[in-house]
């Protein structure tokens, strides 16, 4: 097993997703334009992948494919978060596909392939897998970002995303090469073993530089300041459902990989070791990145007039919060946060996408004026998601944030917690600004009613139930995470 370790169950979700993706793609080629069929098929594939992931629940912690992938509770949990995000994205895209007359098969296939990359990123136990998974995600999302081809904004978004993404990939790759040079391996478990002992001066320098490069690459993927610069432009220009996808599932995957690489491979061991030496630095750097992300994200969001850009900056800010959890090395908190964030952010974007109509015409916050009581089925859920993003108690956003802050305080980062709570207050300002516009401002012209599709309603129900369920009765999910934590591959070293 260990020699080759071909274990198809270990990549079950990825296999299911890939097969579904190929199937959808082929169906599109032979009988194009069947949105419902393709959509149901894609959704079924995602559900099936979820089942496949759940089947791994009790497996953990084991590795497979020559220790390329790992099977543990967190992989399963993050996989489920990613699948949920992808599923909701399919719902969110429903109307968009019709309006833009996009061949649904290719679109769904790209989403599914992207999801494969994400689940692989979560599962990866080798820098090579991580690199390939990351590239799979980014290449799929480059295409998605440019999907509205006749729209210059979309193309520009794709171009910027591509150039900056490839640029940061180069850093990541250089980092991987240097880490390989420092430790003679690309396998994370092996690397962890190597760095848990002392290394020579040259290797230490290589290790440091490699880790720094990796930090840059990951920082880019999870949109932390100062590697966030692409986010607002890309989020604004990409078609709204794609933005929704971009801001959730890949980020969850990114954070999972971030955790695997930094807090598991280079943990602060507390004993004399290369890992410990490195840890003190990456902790400092990530602290700085976290603070910068929280402050920049929240402050700049205040000045935004476009709701997608505002949510982009909010997403940067949330990345800052999650980094607090990464620093606290609380996997469960990060996982839960990403679950919650995925739900509430997708909920938000679902409404934004619907309201934006064809061609993303209505995306200025000012254009939400008067939405409040004219279409309460749009405005109230949006208000709830925004309130949840702001972290008001009673919603999932609060529980998630509270957990992060609590863990961070316990792990000895009180200053981050204080900055975090204060920045939360700042965030209230811009989240509630949308509420102000919706409810307290009168529209300049007659506000049309937007028809609600069934898929949209489904997405709303899922997201709303999620926001309140996780906000009020999270114990069950906590129990799951608790199991996952116990299944975490500590034995990886």
């Amino acid at each position, binding site marked *: 097993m260990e020699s080759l370790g071909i274990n198809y169950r270990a990549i079950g979700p990825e296999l299911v997703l890939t097969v579904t993706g190929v199937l959808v793609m082929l169906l599109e080629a032979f009988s194009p334009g069947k949105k419902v069929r393709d959509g149901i098929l894609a959704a079924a594939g995602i559900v099936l992948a979820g089942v496949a992931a759940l089947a791994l629940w009790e497996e953990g912690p084991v590795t497979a494919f020559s220790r390329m992938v790992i099977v543990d509770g967190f992989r399963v949990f993050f996989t489920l978060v990613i699948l949920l995000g992808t599923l909701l994205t399919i719902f969110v895209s429903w109307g968009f596909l019709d309006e833009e007359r996009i061949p649904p098969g290719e679109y769904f296939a790209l989403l599914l392939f992207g999801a494969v990359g994400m689940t692989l990123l979560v599962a990866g136990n080798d820098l090579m897998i991580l690199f390939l998974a990351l590239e799979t995600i980014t290449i799929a999302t480059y295409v998605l970002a440019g999907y509205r081809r006749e729209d210059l904004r979309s193309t520009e978004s794709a171009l910027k995303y591509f150039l900056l993404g490839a640029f940061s990939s180069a850093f990541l790759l250089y980092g991987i090469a240097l880490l390989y040079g420092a430790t003679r391996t690309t396998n994370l478990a092996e690397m962890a073993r190597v760095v848990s002992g002392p290394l020579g001066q040259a290797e230490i320098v290589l290790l440091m530089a490699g880790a720094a490069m990796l930090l840059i690459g990951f920082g880019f993927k999870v949109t932390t300041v100062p590697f966030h610069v692409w986010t607002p432009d890309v989020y604004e220009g990409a078609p709204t459902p794609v933005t929704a996808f971009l801001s959730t599932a890949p980020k969850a995957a990114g954070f999972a990989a971030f955790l695997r690489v930094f807090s598991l491979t280079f943990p602060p061991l507390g004993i004399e070791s290369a890992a410990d030496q490195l840890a003190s630095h990456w902790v400092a750097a990530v602290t700085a990145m976290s603070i910068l992300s929280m402050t920049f994200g929240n402050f700049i969001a205040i000045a935004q007039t476009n709701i997608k850009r505002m949510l982009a900056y909010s997403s940067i800010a949330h990345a800052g919060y999650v980094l607090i959890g990464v620093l606290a090395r609380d996997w469960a908190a990060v996982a839960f946060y990403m679950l919650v964030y995925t739900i509430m952010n997708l909920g938000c974007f679902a409404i934004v996408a619907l309201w934006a109509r064809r061609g993303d015409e209505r995306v200025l916050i000012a254009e939400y004026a008067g939405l409040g009581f004219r279409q309460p089925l749009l405005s109230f859920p949006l208000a709830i998601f925004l309130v949840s993003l702001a972290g008001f*108690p009673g919603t999932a956003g609060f529980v998630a944030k509270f957990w992060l802050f609590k863990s961070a305080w316990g792990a000895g980062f*009180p200053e981050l917690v*204080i900055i975090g709570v204060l920045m939360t*207050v700042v965030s209230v300002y811009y989240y509630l600004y949308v*509420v102000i516009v919706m409810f*307290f*401002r009168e529209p300049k012209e007659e506000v049309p009613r937007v028809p609600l599709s069934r898929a949209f309603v489904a997405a709303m129900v899922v997201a709303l139930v999620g926001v309140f369920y996780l906000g009020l009765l999270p114990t069950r999910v906590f129990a799951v995470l608790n199991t996952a934590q116990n299944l975490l591959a500590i034995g990886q070293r």
Partner: protein
Amino acid sequence: MKEHLLSWLTFAPTAGALLLLFARVLMGAREETIRRLALALSLVPLGLCVPLLLRFDPMASGPQMVERVPWIRFFGFNVDYFVGVDGLSLWFVVLSALLVTISILASWRAIDQHVLAFHVFLLLLETGLIGVFVALDLFLFFIFWEVMLVPMYFLIGIWGYERRVYAAVKFIIYTMVGSALMLAAIISLYYLNGGTTFDIPAITENVRAGRLVLDPATERWLFWGFALAFLIKVPLFPFHTWLPDAHVEAPTAGSVILAGVLLKMGGYGLLRFNLPLFPQATEEFAGLLCGLAILSIIYGALVSMVQPDLKKLIAYSSVSHMGFVVLGIMARTEMGLQGAIFQMLSHGISTGALFIIVGVLSERRHTRWIAEFGGLARPMPVFSALFGILALASVALPTLSGFVGEFLVLVGTYTSELAHARAYTVLAATAMIFSAAYMLWTLERVLFGEITREENRHLPDVNGRERLTLIPLAVLVIVMGVLPNPILRRTDRAILELKQAVRGAVLVQSEPLGRRAPNPALFGSAAREQAESMRRR
């Protein structure tokens, strides 16, 4: 028997809100029906207050009618759904239920847009309000504490006056700055207490029994973490500037709830958390807070005096009145503490009613500027009589509710062990003069004198519905002034225990400091006081 009264009380309004939604969505209820239904639904919690009061045992120690269910578990979330009432919270629950009903009545005509949403928010707000007072778990407390901001925000922002958006944002940001730091303090406290529970009575008991000893610096930080949230809410000078805006711009119901209940959450928080949990820091900062309280009292009164806007005037008068609350709390004598609670209740009712008074006027004239009125006593005699009674309660005329609270606070402050107790008392007592000045001047300008504007000549007097809102409050104001004991008696036990906890902790920890000896005529041993309080019943 399983205890569910408090849950019913807390969540009956939420259920009511859902019911309202169903009534509209499924049955297509009209606005008038919605109003009636909302009123009926708001009577449910008010009605539940009757068994609450009947079953409350003034003699019993600790929280009563406790419900405790494990709620969130794992990862240090030992959060319980843990509610109960004691002497500190009992009356605030009743006050909340009462004022929400009154608010619905008061908004009958004033709210003609989005009637459904208005009542839904109001009922949700009620859940938050009651929840804050009954929660005995820090986490739960914080949830209610924050949750009620959202409906309030909507109430101000949607149904408010011209600058409502500014006011709503200011309100929510101001209060959230305070509560954000409180959240950090809660987390910190949780770890300091061993990282196992958010149970407020347990943590309090740990502090009292010396099992949880904080080092002074930590205690100071935690004290301010909590206090800032509460002081902003109270609001104490100089954190008060959100209040005039919020009060003025809010619709009548919003102002009533703001003044009537929301401000009380600040005082309640100080009583529930700062005093028993951080006795040393309280001791250390009591002087500062008393100074700020005095400033609030005088400053609020003076600024109130010169307001041209009736609502703003009453808003600033709240600053003044709530200064007494902080003063009484910081005095940490039984009389001071009880006075603070009583003052809060009294202020809730009288100021709430005064906002309804302003509402009555602005419904008729669509202005709140004092200069627009004058001579209203002629066309509106009943209104004027009610205005007069409520204004005088605010002036703390003996036999009206305001007096009992202020007098107890003053006596309590004077007999406290604060360093400058006498000076505080004297300065605070000047409010007697200033409050008379601003209130009577207002009465003069609004009710008396010649009728200067033709529109005022034939203003209709308060109608039946308005009487239904104002007269009960006016009667309460008188009853509370003449017969405050039923209220005081039910707070006795909790106050006594609170005081002993504070004193015990301070004495245990600061014995060598040798503060000035208490006057033996006033302060017997704790045991004697206990005996005394037993005898009294």
